[in-house]
């Protein structure tokens, strides 16, 4: 019997099985729906959060009932930790939200509304992809905007995934997570250090923020009227938005927030031409891709299909969702791996303390180059890979871009070899992810 026939037979057998299925009474369904509506806010929360400039997002992952201030009260404090520990949801009056945002929330689609600049587009695209993974599985999701309208120069992007619903290697790491921004230390922390995935990211302004979540009937809303004043109001069950700061017409770019390296440079092992192994360096993280978040690097000159593919790679790579990442490339993806599938290799490599996903994120945040092939233009990262001449003739900016990933010794290794042979990524003009490889 061929595959087609076996599939048909298997489907017929499934029809037989489901023919005996009867739907529970619709009254039970209604009762369950009502019960779900009053389940305390974050009973099984896994969370993804971004934070930005002066406002913070939080939640609790263990079903603890949060006790905000009473209705109508205004809490003024400079102790953000205290505020956040009592915070349930953040959002002001959503009545001025764009229709698009209302539409999105009502459908529980998870993407931020933004003003259209490229790097924000990228983030939006990425988050748009999240909806199929998070809808119905988390209780609170907050996507923050970055640096809009706040006097603080802080421009942090915090990301984290917690709780037993968290994907991949984070599953089971559960606990309260209260995000605290410490301007003095240029640091942010979460309630559980080992769950902390923090990276410094873009400083832009103006993205709308969308909150998706269920809240309990006695939950409160806190309206942010300034960085330190919050007024509490009762809310009702449903889905909500958050918007920090004023409506946005433009997005501005600025440099990264903190100065210096957040993560030590990688040291490559092995001789030039050998498979490059990237050691983990004292970083406690289940997915190295979560250690880095791009980017201020402009991508205005990339075709939209390439941008879309980039967004997917970054989304899945930053979370070590290897099956999804592999799907982006499909069967045509060439990767540096020894197993049957790239996802198997990535899983093994991350588990072994190498950090291919960090490298991938880092690469894609570097300037790109192009290579013309018989099949069209190939967009490659880093730009050094596109350089056709000798190492000595490589433009300084291409070499400098590599310094965020490689040590001087590594660069010398490339020079000795005569060209860049480190990790590289290629995406065709129509968005096909072609390779993520290293070596010569």
């Amino acid at each position, binding site marked *: 019997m061929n*595959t087609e026939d076996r*599939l048909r037979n298997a489907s017929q057998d499934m029809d037989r*099985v*489901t023919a*005996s*299925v009867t739907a*529970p009474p619709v009254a039970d369904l209604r009762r369950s729906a009502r019960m779900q509506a009053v389940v305390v806010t974050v009973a099984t929360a896994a969370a993804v959060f971004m934070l930005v400039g002066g406002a913070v997002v939080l939640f609790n992952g263990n079903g603890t009932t949060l006790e905000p201030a009473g209705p109508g009260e205004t809490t003024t404090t400079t102790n953000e930790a205290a505020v956040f520990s009592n915070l349930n949801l953040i959002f002001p009056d959503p009545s001025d939200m764009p229709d698009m945002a209302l539409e999105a929330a009502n459908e529980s689609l998870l993407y931020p509304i933004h003003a259209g600049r490229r790097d924000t587009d990228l983030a939006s695209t990425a988050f748009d992809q999240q909806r*199929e993974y998070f809808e119905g599985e988390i209780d609170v999701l907050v996507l923050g905007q970055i640096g809009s309208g706040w006097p603080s120069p802080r421009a942090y992007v915090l990301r984290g995934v917690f709780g037993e619903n968290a994907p991949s290697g984070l599953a089971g790491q559960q606990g309260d997570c209260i995000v605290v921004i410490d301007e003095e230390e240029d640091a942010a922390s979460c309630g559980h250090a080992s769950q902390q995935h923090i990276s410094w990211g873009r400083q832009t302004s103006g993205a709308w923020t969308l909150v998706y979540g269920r809240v309990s009937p006695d939950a409160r809303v806190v309206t942010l009227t300034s960085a330190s004043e919050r007024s509490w109001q009762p809310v009702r069950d449903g889905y909500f938005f958050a918007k920090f700061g004023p409506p946005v017409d433009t997005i501005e770019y600025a440099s990264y927030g903190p100065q210096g390296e957040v993560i030590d440079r990688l040291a490559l092992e092995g001789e030039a031409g050998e498979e490059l192994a990237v050691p983990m360096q004292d970083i406690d993280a289940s997915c190295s891709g979560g250690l880095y978040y791009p980017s201020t690097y402009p991508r205005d000159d990339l075709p939209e299909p390439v941008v879309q593919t980039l967004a997917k790679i970054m989304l899945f790579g930053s979370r070590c969702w290897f*099956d999804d990442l592999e799907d982006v490339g499909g069967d045509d993806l060439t990767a540096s791996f020894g197993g049957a599938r790239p996802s198997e290799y990535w899983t093994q490599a991350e588990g072994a303390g190498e950090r291919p996903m960090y490298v991938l994120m880092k690469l894609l945040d570097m300037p790109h180059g192009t290579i013309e092939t018989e099949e069209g233009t190939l967009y490659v990262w880093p730009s050094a890979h596109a350089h056709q001449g000798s190492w000595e003739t490589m433009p300084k900016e291409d070499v400098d871009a590599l310094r965020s990933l490689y040590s001087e010794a590594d660069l010398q290794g490339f020079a000795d070899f005569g060209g860049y042979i480190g990790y590289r990524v290629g995406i065709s003009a129509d968005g096909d992810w072609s390779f993520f490889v290293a070596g010569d």
Partner: protein
Amino acid sequence: MPRPLPLIAVTEDFEAFYKRQYPRAVGVAYALTGRRHVAEEIAQDAFIAGYRRWERVSRYDKPDAWLRRVVVNRSTSVLRRGVTEVKAIRRLRGGVDHIPELEPDASDVWNEVRALPRRQAQAIALFYLEDLSLDQIADVLECSPGTVKTHLRRGRVRLGRKLQTWKEEA
């Protein structure tokens, strides 16, 4: 104050939709998770979500596509997390299996389908179980019909190899 969200008016349409679609939703979830009680939970949870949004969902051109998408995605999420139970889903009937087991050969086939890359497995389940066209599957999976075709082709090829190997080993 936040603008009150519109109340959901549940109509007879929802009940009819629910009764008509429920068994098929269970079937897809069963194929994609391999667990009977989990399949029922996923289907129930999807319909609860649909109930709560029915005012909107009922206005969609294809509310059944929305439902399938929820079921497919939640089934995949269950597999992704590797959990043994679906949490945050309220069982309506005490958590016991109400559907019989598959025949061994059918069970083997669906086991291999689940071992395929996610999109390929979803496309095959929707194509063979639901008899959906490429366009309909594309609606559910939110991709192009061409992409669906590719997933189906690759899935069949990979499945053929696996089933052949299995047969030879047997």
